[in-house]
């Protein structure tokens, strides 16, 4: 491999990385902007990850209490929000339809013993764990497709903890 090809390869790798990241960030930002906010009740604990720092592991009531062994690997959790946006469980289903007008959906995937939204960890600045131990709800922005991202945690009065 001569130096020209090598440089071309390195440069294109850089472009691919930045393009990929841009696309991913763009998608997440859209959910952040366009998605509706719903609250999911919690039960948390704290570990630490080497590259990403302190985080709080979240367990959502809605998936814990309604878990059963015969769920599919991927699907949708159907819920109805109350007046504060707190989610109440309706059912699990494999496909995005059928769904009635007051119902909302969020994608889930399951592991051996649990159902997950792909938002079971909340990262925060190191050393600020005490503040977040008050968390009673996880706030997820969910778009119309059922893609959700975790945007914050909320206390018992349903106020965001910052």
């Amino acid at each position, binding site marked *: *491999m001569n*130096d020209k090809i*090598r*440089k071309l*390869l*390195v*440069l*294109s*790798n*850089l472009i*691919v*990385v*930045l393009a*990929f*990241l841009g696309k*991913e*960030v763009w998608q*997440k930002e859209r959910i952040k902007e366009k998605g509706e906010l719903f609250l999911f009740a919690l039960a948390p604990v704290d*570990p630490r*990850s*080497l*590259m*990403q*720092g*302190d*985080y709080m592991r979240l367990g959502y009531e809605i998936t814990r209490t309604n878990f059963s062994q015969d769920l599919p*690997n991927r699907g949708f959790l159907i819920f109805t929000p109350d007046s504060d946006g707190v989610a109440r469980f309706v059912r699990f289903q494999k496909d995005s339809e059928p769904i009635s007008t007051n119902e909302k959906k969020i994608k889930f995937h399951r*592991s*051996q013993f649990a159902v997950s939204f*792909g*938002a*079971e*960890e*909340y*990262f*925060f*600045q*190191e050393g*600020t764990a005490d503040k977040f131990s008050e968390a009673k709800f996880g706030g997820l922005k969910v778009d119309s497709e059922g893609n959700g*991202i*975790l*945007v914050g945690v909320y206390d018992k009065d349903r106020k965001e903890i*910052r």
Partner: protein
Amino acid sequence: MMKDLEKGEIYEAIQILDLGKDQARKFLISLFPQRELKEWVRFASISFLGLGLALFSSGIVFFFAYNWAGMHRFSKLGLISCSLAVAVGVYLLGKSESYSRQALLILASVLVGVLLAVYGQIYQTGANAVDLFLGWTFLSLGFVIAGNSPPLWFLWILLSNITVELYQKQVLFRDESPYSYSFALLFNAAAVFLYERENRKNDSKEIAGWFPNTVGFLTYYFATFGSIFSIFRDVKEEGDLLMVCLSLATLSIGYFVYRYKIRRLGILALSLLSAITLVFSVFVRVFDWNDFALPFLFGGIALTTVTAWSARHLMQIRNEWKKGERVG
């Protein structure tokens, strides 16, 4: 080969030749020529480069792991992206192949990981997610191929292995499959094979003896644990047979290659250890748990015997090699 003389033999030689203090010193210097200053400088510069790279990378990692609430998310991503662009830019400006250019590529590969980790941190996509390592593996491949050096490949192989492990645990969980262990085994074995082939082709001094040893270790890890997984599974399929056969093939090929073709005692030791582990896994699997005192006793005795024999066998091989070198 002078360098393989034992201390005792040199001492004997000095005794037999009846050398005085000064003479003995000259004799020793002629056996072990002193290093040139140039070599020392080269050694120091490589070590400092490696150390600097490691400290710098971990500094970046820990800075972002702190997760500063006061920093806007776009400035975090922008900072890392710019550093990545700068590392690549400096690489592109360089002319000759040198260690520092390699270091830039390693830094770039690490930064790709930091970028993905911070992205996960910002959008709360979960810790140690398989997507992170999968992305990291693919998005650093270009840098690795361009650099084509043992440390870069090693980093990449490590990432691939972590990806496979996480895939087993996070995606397959319910049906962990012998096929993914087999794949990991073949993948690592291929890496070792390619290294050995290159090394033979160049016929020069070995540049990275640590590479086949560490990647060989990974290969044996998957051979041993993949087989144990297959042996102890309640439901068996063709994949399990494939897994065990692959492991046995790896063990025997590894043993013969590294005993008769290339000399690496570490991998020989691993072959024997894996073989013992596999045989005893089968033994434990077919064990009659209702009456386990006798098999337990005999198993223990057998295990002790085989381990002692392996150690002796390895020492014999080492001595054989030593003798061969002295004659040759």
